């Protein structure tokens, strides 16, 4: 099953998103509505933060085969991933992603390929340089409610958050 819908990049669209997801959850029968809504809502709020222009839109794609795959486009400009996270300006990441400090939970980011960052929760990490000291509450929430989370940067195009539940 495949569900695709575009929404204006504005938090006031949250209710429209919720209504659509209610229909999707009924059709899917594999995930409770409130959990589906929570995960996608958090990603939608995250994407809205990137949306610079009033006319920009966010596309939500939900695909169910053996797993539930969700993609939420981000109308922001995006940026290139360096060869390793040591080269990341974490202050810049904190600024761009509105990251907040969470003393109890660590988010670990790994470079999967030149255009993909994957995230997972970890209280400890073997390589401190890979750990982002500042975390994003929404990102943490999605991680707690999903199996996998990755962020894809598509140069000169849109970026998207990919979630597996």
């Amino acid at each position: 099953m495949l569900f695709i819908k575009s929404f204006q990049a504005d938090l006031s669209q949250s209710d429209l998103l919720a209504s659509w997801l209610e229909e999707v959850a009924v059709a899917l029968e594999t995930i409770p509505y409130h959990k589906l809504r929570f995960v996608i809502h958090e990603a939608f709020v995250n994407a809205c933060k990137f949306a610079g222009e009033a006319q920009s839109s966010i596309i939500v794609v939900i695909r169910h085969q053996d797993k539930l795959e969700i993609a939420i486009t981000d109308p922001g400009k995006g940026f290139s991933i360096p060869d390793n996270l040591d080269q990341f300006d974490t202050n810049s990441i904190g600024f761009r992603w509105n990251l907040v400090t969470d003393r109890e939970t660590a988010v670990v980011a790994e470079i999967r390929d030149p255009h993909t960052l994957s995230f997972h929760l970890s209280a400890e990490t073997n390589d401190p340089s890979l750990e982002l000291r500042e975390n994003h509450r929404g990102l943490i929430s999605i991680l707690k409610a999903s199996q996998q989370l990755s962020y894809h940067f598509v140069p000169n195009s849109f970026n998207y958050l990919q979630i597996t539940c």
Partner: protein
Amino acid sequence: MTQHVKILSQPHYSILSFEGLKNLDANSAHRVKAEIKGLLDEQVVNAIIDLSSIHFIDSTGFGALISVLKTIKSRNGNLILSGVSSEVRELMDLMQLLNVFELSESVDDAISQLN
């Protein structure tokens, strides 16, 4: 601007409830947090937040509730969330917040707990 948070103050506790609000999310939480902050004067030590009208809470909404909890704890008081729906309770479970907040089935139960 419409006030969404109502307060009923009693000698030993205050009850906060929401009017015309179903979602405590990124769209509303900052405003609600500011309203609650304005209502919780320093004399309020114990508080009950009636969530029976709230259908959905996101991470920003939970952040606002945690902020209230911190304020109440700093006064050595107690905060009880009452009327939490099963859906919101599941989201709290996902966010590992069930051990953070004290819950009660109803406002009356919360008052009994405080007494």
